[in-house]
């Protein structure tokens, strides 16, 4: 009896994980260093007997098509090499989840899932949350809570940029945590996890929140509220009652069936996925219009002011002027306006190598002090340092590529998109860029300019979408 209880207690550590051979060994060495090999084998035997544990090869071939059972990647991601483990000439490995340790066809995958077993739900006390929601936000949160109670499989939560998505989600998460359920907050990128965790830790006790990303200290610990990058969900299965997918339309989530599969898998049967986005994809909008995808719309920002509508200007010779070191009159006017309203500006360029050229051009052609104009790109080593200087208003004009289109908040910000007709700018990224502006109530002078030779479809769509959302927001406020 005692052994049985002990094995059950140990099982709670393992539950909901999907681990490779080598990961199981590492995890054991970390958490159960005193457990002997015999005990472990006995435990595995028991669990497999009870159907709590399934062990199968990581990569299998079904009807001649190979599939990685770990991340769900298809034939196109599988490659074959001679293997030093199984000493066969053609051992299949998966390219897609290579960065999380290599899965091979000669390696076993351990799946710790109890089907149809209700987990012991320990009611937890949560600090009475001290957040102030606007009326609109709390109505939205209530709607979302109802959907979660109804066990809707997927819900789209469309909130404009700067609407206070994180704050709105907290009243949705809180009752679940109180009932002892578990919640996953999953984002596409690591820096978002690092930024979000301290914010959520303000509302929930520290031991409840864990962060999972490559190289995070508590990667192996599971807790009621897990914040993870999308790739880390590959290691989890049937674990969460609510999965919140933040920035669900951003790279690498969008159009990646394997990651979608693993996010779907990490939720329990009867759980809900909330797709959180400011710019839903065309497919979601289509489904929403057809009524297949339940949607909650939050069209106004937390301060109730509308989003600034982008101003499009035709500038056919702008790029030539940059090349021949001449000032452009529109750009001069924009700079004057920004300076007169005491603002800062983000200048978006389509390619990394353009950033340096434009920054030098701005520096030379306008009378800025040394260091007031700078550029960043994804390959820049002092990116965080430059961002800090931009936040502290040491840099007034920052030239950047699309990396800064999401997730930054500068209170006195303007945005200018040069060459807005370039194919890297789609509707979503233009709307996101416009969403950088006017996020604080105190500074509403921020403007958005799109400068390009042609008025492309994404530009029109972005402007139309912002106007639509502003109209919706007006309706809510009664004009």
């Amino acid at each position, binding site marked *: 009896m005692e052994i049985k209880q002990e094995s059950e207690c140990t099982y709670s550590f393992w539950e909901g994980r999907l681990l490779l051979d*080598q990961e199981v060994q590492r995890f054991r060495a970390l958490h159960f260093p005193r457990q002997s090999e015999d005990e472990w084998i006995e435990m595995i035997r028991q669990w497999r007997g009870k159907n709590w544990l399934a062990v199968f090869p990581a990569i299998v071939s079904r009807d001649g098509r190979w599939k990685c059972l770990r991340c769900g990647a298809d034939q196109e991601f599988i*490659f074959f*090499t*001679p*293997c*030093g*483990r199984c000493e066969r000439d053609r*051992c299949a*490995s998966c*390219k897609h989840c*290579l*960065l999380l*340790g*290599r899965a*091979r066809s000669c390696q076993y995958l351990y799946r710790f899932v109890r089907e149809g077993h209700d987990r012991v739900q320990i009611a937890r006390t949560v600090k009475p949350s001290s957040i102030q929601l606007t009326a609109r936000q709390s109505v939205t949160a209530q709607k979302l809570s109802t959907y979660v109670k109804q066990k809707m499989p997927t819900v789209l939560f469309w909130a404009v940029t700067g609407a206070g998505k994180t704050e709105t989600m907290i009243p949705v998460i809180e009752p679940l945590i109180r009932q002892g359920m578990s919640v996953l907050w999953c984002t596409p990128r690591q820096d978002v996890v690092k930024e979000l965790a301290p914010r959520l830790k303000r509302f929930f006790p520290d031991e409840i929140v864990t962060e999972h990303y490559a190289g995070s200290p508590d990667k192996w610990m599971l807790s009621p509220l897990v914040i993870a990058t999308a790739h880390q969900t590959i290691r989890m299965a049937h674990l969460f009652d609510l999965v919140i997918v933040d920035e669900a339309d951003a790279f690498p989530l969008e159009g990646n069936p394997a990651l979608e599969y693993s996010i779907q898998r990490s939720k329990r049967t009867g759980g809900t996925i909330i797709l959180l986005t400011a710019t839903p994809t065309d497919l979601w909008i289509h489904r929403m219009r057809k009524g297949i995808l339940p949607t909650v719309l939050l069209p106004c920002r937390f301060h109730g002011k509308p989003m600034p509508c982008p101003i499009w200007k035709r500038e056919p010779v702008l790029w030539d002027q940059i090349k021949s070191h001449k000032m452009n009159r529109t750009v001069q006017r924009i700079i004057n306006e920004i300076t007169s309203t005491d603002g800062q500006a983000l200048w978006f360029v389509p390619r*990394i*190598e353009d950033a340096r050229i434009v920054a030098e051009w701005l520096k030379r052609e306008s009378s800025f002090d040394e260091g007031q104009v700078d550029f960043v790109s994804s*390959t820049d080593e002092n990116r965080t340092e430059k961002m800090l200087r931009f936040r502290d208003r040491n840099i007034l004009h920052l030239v950047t590529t699309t990396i800064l289109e999401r997730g930054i908040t500068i209170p006195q910000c303007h945005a200018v998109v040069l060459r807005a007709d370039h194919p890297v700018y789609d509707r979503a990224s233009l709307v996101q860029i416009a969403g950088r502006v006017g996020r604080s109530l105190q500074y509403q002078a921020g403007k958005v300019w799109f400068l390009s030779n042609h008025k492309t479809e994404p530009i029109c769509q972005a402007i139309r979408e912002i106007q639509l959302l502003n109209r919706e927001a007006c309706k809510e406020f009664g004009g």
Partner: protein
Amino acid sequence: MRSWWSKIFGDSSALCWFCQSPRPKVIGNPIWEQLCAGCTEKRKMLAYPQCRVCGKPNSIDDSFCYDCQRTPESDRVVNISCVEYNHWARLVVQQWKYRGDERLSRPMGLWMASLIKQRFLHMDRFMITYVPCHRKRVYERGFDQAKQLAHIIGAQLHVPVVDLLVRQSYQDQPQSKRSRDQRLQALVGTFSYQGKQMDSSGQSVLLVDDVYTTGSTVRECAKLLRKANFQPVACTFARTNSEYV
């Protein structure tokens, strides 16, 4: 629209060998030009003039560097390397060796092969061997990294690859996590010679490894090869370029 164009002349863009991002494709470029803009910026080739023994960039001429002056003359091994072991090279080697991305061994091998062609191919009766991994490590990683490089180089240059050495002791701590003194001590008795007693008087053999830090691994292997009457030279993918390690 222009589908016939790419059918006849091939695609105009290709993928970077190291990070799989798109790069311009120019036919006939050497392998180190076939990288994307980001990788080209970050990879650092070793500058000339270099130390005539270990290939370390020297500021003045091709005389011996300080490291080589310290080692006894009988121990010195001529080494050539492709790139400096900087942050980029470290990430590449990490992804290749520890994460098991075997696709990277092809560009690394081709790069080394073209370097060997420039520097060593005038040697007659020449063969390739490698610094082996322990059996257990091969099981863990699934492949022997230096062996893979050696086979790619051998296939490229039409030179036979032979297994001459074997690693005897399994080290819990990999070489890359030690200091200089620890490295020099830990290697004694690690390798042993396993080739047949063949007529090898004075035959050149090329020793392939991935990273050259202090050169102690290479020197230890070379010692064994010299005992068996070979003349070893070494080729590594990356080497450190700091004053002292």
